Structures are given as structure tokens and as C-alpha cells.
């Protein structure tokens, strides 16, 4: 009896090993599992995985935390996945573990948020500095007379958000736009709504807001009476992100312009590029820094209905 059980176990192990060996597994690791912004990347990565006939493992830390993300990558090294596509919470903190994964024979690519000094094969995503720069240029067009502009950000220190702020500030430097001290909503919708409401009400001479992420627009329009009043009284808002719930705000004139990152492209291009590297196929890794630009989309009153029709309802 023992022999039969041993034989069955060995046979099962051989079967499992061959199954693993046959299929390519790519782990996709967002900044956190609690950020709905990555859902479009997940859907696109999984669709691309199905198209290519490979396994996609969507995994990550429950919240945005570089330390926990390091542990997730260490687990994936132990599991010996073939590829890892990661959005880094901290460029430097993830550098060492990415290099260890590469040494272990795993191909690593970054999406959304890069770790440029690591040995990752490529980064596909948005040039966040360019997003801030673009927002500033559009702001100068919207308020040629200049004035005070407030900035709302999320978690302080996130490299992508800091780059957007830097791009915005450096572009408006020396112009008639006065940038007010940065305010944070800590990636929390309620805090963002309250901070924007209170700051707007307290600064009647404020000309515009730049939201470097769209947190307030995840709430219901009824929850933002201050924003509505601000826009009705001649204020202006430019916001990053073009998620589905945000589209209604363009139609309601509660935001002038949305600048969206292409999250589906990041998921799909990231997985496809990793697959090509793993299988030894010819691959285009962009410029000398191996940066693949997934571009961004602009949404305003003129095209929001058209863009909205392409979005998966939340």
C-alpha cells in the first residue's frame, strides 16, 4: 500500500513539475492590491496572457508599502516564476530585490513606476515629468492671466507623483502662475475631498487646482459642492487620471481637463515584452534607457463621451 501511495505521489509530482515547466508564468505586481487604478492593467495583462497561452499571476502587497512589496518579490523568486512585471512603490528600495530576481534568472520589467538603477529589462509607462509639464502648459493656456494654483497630491514621496509635481512646478516657474504649498489627501478619497473643499473655501482668490491624481473624483458629485461652486465661479481644475467614474465630471463642467495614463497598454505591452524576452523573440525595448512610452490620453468636454464609451464601467 505504501509503495502504491509513493508511486502516486511521485507521479503527481512529475506531472506538476512538467506542467510548470511547460507553461510560462509571469507575475504582475501592482503597487498594491487595493488601488482600483490598476484594475485596467490587470484585465489587459490577463487578456494578453490568455492570447499568448501563458499563466498570469496577479499578486502584490495589500497596501502601498515598499517593504511588503520586497517580500512579495522574494516569494516570487522562491517560486521561480519566469517573469515579473512590477510597479515599484520606491525606486531605491526595490532595486536590490529586482537585481536578485534577475540573478535568479527571472526577467523583470517595470510598469507605471520605475526602478531605473536596477537591472530590470525595461520600463513601460508614462513619463510622469511630462505629465506634470503638460498639465502646466495646459494650465497656462486655460488661465493666461495667471494666479494662484494649488496642488493636490496623494501619498507623499511616491516617485511618480513627485515627478508630476516637479514637472508642473518647473514649467510654470517664472510665469504669472503662483504655485501654493502642496496639499495631500494621502491617497484617501475622504481626506482628498475634505482638503480640497476646505482649501478652496478658505482661498477665494485661488485661480486653479492641479490634482496630480484623481482622488476627489472617485466620490459622488454630490459630495463635492465646493468644487462645483469653485468651477461655477470661474475656477479651473486639471486632473491626472481618466478612470471611468471621472468621466461624468467632465460633462458636468467640474473639471477642465483630464490627463490619463494608459493603464491597459502598460499591462498588455509589459506582459508581451516579457514574453518575447523569455522566449528569445525579437523585441523593441524603446530608447537606450529601455523606456517604452505608453503615452497618455487627454479628455475634455470635446471628447469625453467618445472616451467614456471605451471605458469598462466600474
Amino acid at each position: 500500500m505504501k509503495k502504491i501511495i509513493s508511486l502516486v505521489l511521485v507521479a503527481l509530482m512529475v506531472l506538476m513539475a512538467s506542467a510548470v515547466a511547460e507553461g510560462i508564468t509571469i507575475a504582475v505586481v501592482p503597487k498594491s492590491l487595493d488601488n482600483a487604478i490598476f484594475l485596467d492593467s490587470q484585465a489587459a495583462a490577463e487578456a494578453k496572457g490568455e492570447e499568448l497561452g501563458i499563466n498570469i499571476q496577479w499578486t502584490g502587497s495589500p497596501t502601498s508599502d515598499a517593504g511588503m512589496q520586497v517580500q512579495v518579490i522574494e516569494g516570487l523568486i522562491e517560486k521561480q516564476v519566469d517573469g515579473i512585471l512590477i510597479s515599484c512603490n520606491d525606486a531605491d528600495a526595490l532595486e536590490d530585490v529586482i537585481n536578485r530576481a534577475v540573478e535568479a534568472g527571472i526577467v523583470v520589467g517595470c510598469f507605471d513606476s520605475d526602478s531605473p538603477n536596477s537591472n530590470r529589462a525595461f520600463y513601460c509607462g508614462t513619463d510622469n515629468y511630462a505629465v506634470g509639464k503638460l498639465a502646466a502648459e495646459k494650465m497656462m493656456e486655460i488661465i493666461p492671466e495667471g494666479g494662484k494654483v494649488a496642488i493636490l497630491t496623494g501619498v507623499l514621496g511616491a516617485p511618480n507623483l513627485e515627478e508630476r509635481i516637479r514637472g508642473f512646478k518647473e514649467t510654470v516657474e517664472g510665469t504669472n502662475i503662483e504655485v501654493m504649498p502642496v496639499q495631500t489627501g494621502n491617497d484617501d478619497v475622504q481626506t482628498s475631498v475634505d482638503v480640497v473643499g476646505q482649501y478652496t473655501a478658505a482661498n477665494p482668490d485661488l485661480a486653479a487646482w492641479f490634482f496630480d491624481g484623481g482622488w476627489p473624483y472617485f466620490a459622488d458629485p454630490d459630495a463635492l459642492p465646493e468644487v462645483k461652486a469653485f468651477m461655477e465661479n470661474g475656477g479651473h481644475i486639471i486632473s491626472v487620471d481618466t478612470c471611468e467614474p471621472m468621466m461624468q465630471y467632465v460633462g458636468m463642467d467640474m473639471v477642465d481637463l483630464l490627463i490619463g495614463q494608459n493603464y491597459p497598454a502598460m499591462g498588455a505591452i509589459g506582459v508581451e515584452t516579457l514574453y518575447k524576452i523569455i522566449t528569445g523573440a525579437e523585441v523593441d525595448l524603446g530608447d537606450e534607457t529601455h523606456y517604452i512610452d505608453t503615452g497618455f490620453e487627454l479628455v475634455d468636454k470635446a471628447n469625453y463621451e467618445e472616451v467614456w464609451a471605451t471605458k469598462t464601467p466600474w
Partner: protein
Amino acid sequence: MSQQTNTKKSGGIGRILSINGVGIFLVLLAMCIALTIAVGNKFLSASNIISVVRQFSFYGILAIGMCMVIITGGIDISVGSVFALSGVIACMGITKWGIPVWISVLMGLAAGALMGYINGACITWLKLPAMIATLGMQSIARGVAYTVTGGYPIGSLPDNFKFIGLGTIFGIPTPIILMVLLAALAIFFLNMTVVGRRIYAIGGNEEGARISGVNVNRIKRLVYALCGLTAAISGIAMAARLGVGQSTAGQGYEMDAIAATVIGGASLSGGSGSIIGAIIGAAIMGVLRNGLVLLDVSAYWQQTVIGIVIIAAVALDNLRHVQHK
């Protein structure tokens, strides 16, 4: 010294405003005066005051339940996750499962109370430390919230649900009214009922309370269930206020609730604390955050300032208390 002891000595108004409460109220008053001098009407405008009170009312409701737990000498770090899951359940009931609003809200409330009761059961039956039991529940509740929503926010909520968080009664936002009503109920419960007084007794001397015939375990389960219930009320009110139920809501709110309770004079070793103090503690946090926004303090400095003010507020109150003795 427990609030109960204080109240027995002082009576009347002092029965409600314990010595701890008065001290910390003076800190709040000083902050309000300083802000009024610094920014004037920006702080004192009706819209700003309502905004601040509405903002901290959610933390205040959380702090009511947390205060009772801390009085027993326990801690509940699952309230942020329970807050999220209860809000999500109520919203999903309405929009995904087609259940009437009031039943969906009751489901959310029941879920919160149940999760709190399970916390209490783990602590009293399985003899787990409160920190570990509620840490586990923090993860479980958050995980269930992610799972049932798939990470997506739940929107398109009807107006009668949104009234819970966005409505006004006689011009006062509903979350503020909710906080005041719940605080009044909790003050009555803690000070005027036998069970309430036993809650203080357990925190002051658990073994003594047990020997004198108090069913310590049953009261602890009740207190954790009430803490879960207040987290659920706050979470549902927040989902209604934002018009969206989110699995990510309430992250870190447990720390704000604990901070508010301790600022309000509660001792983490149990036996002392007051609901009024906890609400004032939440108000201090709210006024502080509002003040930093109004004073145009950069977000990069705000966290540091908040930490300094919390320590200074409690230290000042402690010093005043020592001098009083």
C-alpha cells in the same frame, strides 16, 4: 483614576466633563483661538466650521466605540477594516443585490457588530491578546471587502442612502447629528447603567471585578461588538457621504480613533477615559488638520506638525493633572 471615580467626587456638570475632559477642552479652545487670530474668518466661517465638524464626526463615532474598548484595557485595531467592509456591504446590498436601503444598512450594521463580537470571542474564549485578535480581524475584514468588490468602488447609490452622510437636519449635517446622538447614548450607557459602570470596573481591576461577580468575558464581548457597531455606523455614513462604497476606505483610521481617545484622557492600561474626552480628541485632530490647510502649511510638514501637537496636547494635559494632584 477612573472617570467613574472622578464623577462620583464632582457630580453635576463634572459628571460629564471629567477633569481630563476639561483639560483637553482647554487645549482645543486654545487651538481655536490661535487659529482665529492667525486666519480670522477663514476658520470661523460657518461653512468651514461645519466642514471641520463633519470631517471629524466620522473619527468621533469611531472613537466612541474605541473609548469603551480602551476603558476595559483592550484595543481594537480592526475598526478601519470593519468601517470599510460595513460600508461596502450596505452599498452592495443596494446596488448589486437589489435589497431595500434600510435592510442593506441593517446588514452593514449587523456585519460590523458581528465582527466586533468575533473579536471579543477570540479574546475571551481563545484567550488571544486583543492586539492579535483584532490584527487578524483587520486583515480578514479588509480581505473580504476586497474580495466581494473585486477592488472596484461601489457607486450609483440612491439619494435616500446618501442622506445618511450628505443630508442635513435643521441645517446640521447628518454625520454630526449621528455623532452627537451616539455620544449621548454612550455617555448614558457608561455612566448611568450597571453594565457601563462594570466596564470601568473591568479596566480598573479585572480580577477584582471578576471576584465581585462581574461576568467579565460577557461584558468584554459586548464592548467589542459595540466597537464594531460604531465602526459600521461610521463606515456606512462615510460611504453615504462620498456616494461610494470602497474596499480601501478607512485605512489608518484606527490610529486616529486610538489617538483621539488617548488625547481625550483615556489610559491605554484601562480603567479611565470618557466619551466627551474622545470626541474632543477627535475635534483636536480635525481642527489641527484644518488649521494646517488654512495656514497653507506644506503637506510635507503637516505630518510632523500633527505628531508634535498630539504629544504636546497630551503632555500639557498630563502636566496640568499632576499639578492638580
